[in-house]
């Protein structure tokens, strides 16, 4: 209400908030270019942040899976003394534990000569092994079948397998040759992958359980989380003679590498998010400032019509808030959905929500300085601009 004409007392107006909030929405609609640019920024920032970090989390997952494939998920059991060999039956027992993917038991290494149908005998090293999941091929086994080294089947004792790689190297095309001394026939080839690929340097001689004394067992678990529980159970499964004479190696170096990767990705993400937000804030600041300069006469008029500096500040800040909210809402959902489609599942909604809130806060903060500058400009100067 205006002050009463018949008195000299000029009371302060009520300056209510709802009227100003409604006006700020009209301001946002009127200032199409500035609002549009703010909305676009608000749209792009969450897409960039949620998109990039979401995919980084996925990339991190890929690296971690690689580390796990190298052996973060493996436990190695070594018998510490020659006299305390581990019974081969331990392999079977460990394989029964929850969370175990596969177990391989390795006996002693022995040097032999491979006598091929043609050519000179080649020196090779051989392993007695049980339980390894390898792919067999050759005369006595259909090519490409997965199998375990064990009594019966392809892993039957009394035969030997050459790695596909070694077979090529020594020029063994079909099958195959004889190991001397002992006369063990080489009846096929095998391929070993992942942590077991080191076995490809050797000729494998499947051991029958009871005949074989193991020097080393390698256990792979389904998930790094299983490493400790499985390792803790192993002493009870290797037999009383071996229980105190084994060392159990958890892949601690790899586990540390795993943590380092996680930290590194998190650190890079933080840096990236901060950079995106800083750039967005700078751009928004420039856009909003340019907008207030372009609207100088507007501000002069509002001041002449009785708006306070505080009201003008609020108009600019809220005028930024509305397009920022709109753009951010859409951008956050799009970024979330984008990561969802790339990764195959929708990540936790709290992260996109937090990014959205952060984006709105950053854009609104960017408007504070231009708002204050615009509000404190001399109204006369701006009115007199032709």
């Amino acid at each position, binding site marked *: 209400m*205006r002050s009463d004409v018949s008195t000299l007392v000029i009371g302060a107006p*009520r300056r209510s908030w709802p009227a100003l909030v409604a006006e700020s929405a009209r301001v946002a609609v009127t200032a199409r270019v500035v609002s549009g640019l703010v909305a676009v920024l608000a749209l792009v920032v969450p897409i960039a942040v949620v998109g990039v970090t979401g995919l980084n989390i996925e990339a991190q997952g890929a690296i971690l899976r690689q580390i796990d494939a190298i052996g973060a998920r493996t436990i190695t059991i070594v018998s510490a003394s020659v006299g305390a060999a581990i019974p081969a039956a331990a392999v079977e027992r460990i394989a029964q534990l929850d969370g175990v993917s596969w177990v391989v038991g390795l006996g002693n290494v022995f040097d032999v000569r491979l006598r091929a149908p043609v050519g000179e005998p080649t020196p090779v090293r051989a392993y007695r092994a049980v339980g390894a999941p390898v792919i067999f091929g050759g005369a006595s086994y259909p090519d490409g079948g997965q199998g375990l080294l064990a009594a019966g089947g392809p892993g039957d004792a009394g035969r030997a397998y050459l790695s596909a790689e070694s077979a090529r190297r020594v020029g063994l095309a079909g099958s195959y040759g004889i190991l001397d001394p002992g006369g063990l026939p080489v009846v096929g080839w095998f391929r070993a992958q992942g942590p077991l690929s080191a076995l490809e340097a050797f000729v494998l001689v499947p051991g029958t359980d009871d005949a074989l004394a193991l020097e080393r067992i390698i256990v792979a678990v389904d998930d790094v989380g299983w490493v400790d529980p499985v390792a803790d159970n192993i002493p009870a499964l290797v037999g009383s003679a071996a229980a105190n004479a084994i060392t159990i190696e958890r892949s601690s170096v790899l586990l540390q590498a795993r943590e380092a990767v996680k930290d590194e990705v998190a650190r890079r993400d933080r840096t990236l998010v901060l950079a995106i937000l800083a750039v967005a804030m700078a751009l928004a600041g420039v856009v909003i400032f340019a907008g207030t300069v372009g609207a100088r*006469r507007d501000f002069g008029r509002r001041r002449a019509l009785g708006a306070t500096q505080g009201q003008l500040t609020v108009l600019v800040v809220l005028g930024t808030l509305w397009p920022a909210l709109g753009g951010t809402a859409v951008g956050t959902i799009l970024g979330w959905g984008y990561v969802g489609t790339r990764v195959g599942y929708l990540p936790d909604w709290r992260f996109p929500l937090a990014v959205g809130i952060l984006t709105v806060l950053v854009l609104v903060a960017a408007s504070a300085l231009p708002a204050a500058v615009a509000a404190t400009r001399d109204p006369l100067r701006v009115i007199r601009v032709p």
Partner: protein
Amino acid sequence: MIANVRPLIEAAAITFGYSREQPVLNGWSGSVAGGEIVAIVGPSGSGKSTLLYILGTLVRPWSGTLWIGDHDVARVGDRGRSDVRSAAIGFVFQDALLDPRRSVFDNVVEGAVYRGDSRAEAGVQARALLERFGVDVESSRRATDLSGGQAQRIALARALLDSPPIVLADEPTGNLDHINAKLVETALFEHARSGAAIVMATHDEVLAARCDRTFRLS
């Protein structure tokens, strides 16, 4: 005519200029009581608009005192001067100063927004004022591509919204034809007769002669 004991506007020894070397106003004094309509006359560049800006608290004089009602506005801060403008002063600018991106209606009720008055109530008044001043454009139409006369009458409606006790008008009849000029003049005189203090800058000596008093600048 309602005569107040003290004038609504009371200025003494006002000095102001846009540069130190060239004061536009040099020790100007004057007062306007409620119910009075006073003309500021003088050649172009003599400081008529400048004086209106000072009286309208849009600019602070270098020195001198200015009372608007019970406010010593040369002394109060920006907030106090905004309050005075909002509560007591209606301004008609030389070039209307409408927002061309907003509707005619929004332009007229804009001041109510800052006062925190109801837009609906202000809207009723706004429509009545627009009708009274013969503004024959849709009030929902944007305030762009208007004739000088239309813009000036819309600006007058905005200035008179909610009956301000003080109206400062800068050549309100400047660009208008005779009929429109008469309409604006009548509205300002009627507003003065209702008790308001009106100060109007004009080049029209005939109009100035019809006012209660004249401030002459040189």
